[in-house]
């Protein structure tokens, strides 16, 4: 999803046509900037509830099986349903995501469900509208003009943690935003402890298959590399050490499945009942 020509969702195509061929991410950034300007949100954390309310969206929090949805009731009132069980940072991101749906053509009286998957910009997401709404949520909660000069992915996880705290977002959302805004090459990796899909037949047969720390997704900026999804981390890697320690773990070592060493910072990142690790890797500066 790096160039305009790759967008194929009809709704995204209509959005692009409406804005005379502009890249949809730029359109979404402009939409976020307009929302922030209207609501006079000039510092972190952004009051995303106020933005929603100012746009005529009524927020309701209840026991839902989905993270969030937005729809128009019989009177045309926009209603945003959010799941009560979600942590506040998750609800804030979902709220911003749902607000971003209103940037698309023909939304106002539409009903949309946000299917519960990952927070943040997942490079493997195929649904372009969902991707752009996550992108817009990040742009709303972490505006470029408040973030780009103040926080940098080049510091590893330090600024990721600082931004997460200041913007009241999850570590994963903060890391995704800094990767998106980065000028320097960097990689965000998110791992999850568990099985890979290929283990399922064995598990169904009742066989014991050990769980491993596996790549859930990665996002690279200014780098060309490929990390297979579900690739497991070596037991003696910085990623597995991070899983066992509350502190940030640092190392110079290759990424899973690779041979080129990177500077890596990794930290455990519990998410619901999942054991996760978040890591930022940057190339080793050339000695030349």
């Amino acid at each position, binding site marked *: 999803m790096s160039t305009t020509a790759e967008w194929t969702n*009809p709704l995204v195509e209509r959005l692009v046509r409406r804005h005379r061929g502009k890249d949809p991410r730029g359109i979404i950034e402009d939409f976020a900037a307009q929302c922030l300007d209207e609501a*006079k949100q000039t510092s972190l954390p952004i009051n995303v509830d106020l933005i929603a*309310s100012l*746009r*005529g969206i009524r927020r309701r929090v209840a026991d839902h099986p989905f993270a969030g949805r937005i729809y128009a009731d019989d009177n*045309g009132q926009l209603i945003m349903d*959010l799941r009560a069980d979600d942590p506040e940072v998750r609800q804030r991101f979902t709220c911003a995501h749902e607000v971003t749906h209103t940037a698309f053509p023909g*939304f106002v009286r*539409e009903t949309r469900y946000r299917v519960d998957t990952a927070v943040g910009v997942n490079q493997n997401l195929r649904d372009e509208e969902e991707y752009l709404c996550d992108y817009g949520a990040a742009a709303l909660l972490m505006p470029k003009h408040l973030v780009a000069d103040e926080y940098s992915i080049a510091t590893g996880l330090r600024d990721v943690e600082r931004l997460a705290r200041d913007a009241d977002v999850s570590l994963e959302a903060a890391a995704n935003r800094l990767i998106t805004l980065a000028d320097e090459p960097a990689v965000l990796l998110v791992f999850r402890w568990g099985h890979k899909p290929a283990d399922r037949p064995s598990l169904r047969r009742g066989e014991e298959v050990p769980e491993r720390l596996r790549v859930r997704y990665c996002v690279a900026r200014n780098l060309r590399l490929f990390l297979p999804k579900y690739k497991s981390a070596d037991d003696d890697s910085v990623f597995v050490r991070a899983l066992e320690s509350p502190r940030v773990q640092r190392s110079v070592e290759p990424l899973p499945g690779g041979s080129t060493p990177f500077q890596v910072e990794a930290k455990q990142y519990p998410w619901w009942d999942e054991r996760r690790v978040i890591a930022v890797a940057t190339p080793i500066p050339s000695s030349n």
Partner: protein
Amino acid sequence: MGNRWVPLGVQPLPALNSIGMAADATRIGPRLRAERTRAGLSHARLAQLTGLSKTYLVRLETDPASNPSLEVLHRIADALDITVADLIGAPQTQFEPDDATIPPSLRAFADQAKLSQREIRTLASIRWRKGEEPQTEERWRFILDSLRASRQLDEHNG
């Protein structure tokens, strides 16, 4: 998600008349009074719910020159279960129907169940991730029923 109000007076907050949108600040007082009355709240009760003073709320309703901040309006709107847009009379975006995008399975269900145009549009407007689009009339019926049930819950609780 708890509301985190900024203490008044700590920092200057943007006032309504600085909002770059079509809102009529002089109409806020009558709207506020009408919505407060509709909600059955006294000034004292609304003051309690919002953390604002009763005197200030009375002034907002009666003084066209009062210039409340968006944060103040948000507190009030939340307490009244309306939006800031309702309170300031911001324009509502209109629905843009696109009949060409109605999938065949929905069209078949709509014909069979004699759905209203509004129901068809609502269902047609749902955006699905790839592979999750309903393929059968039964699934569309389930979705419509769930929306109706959700609405009835709101009405029951309201």
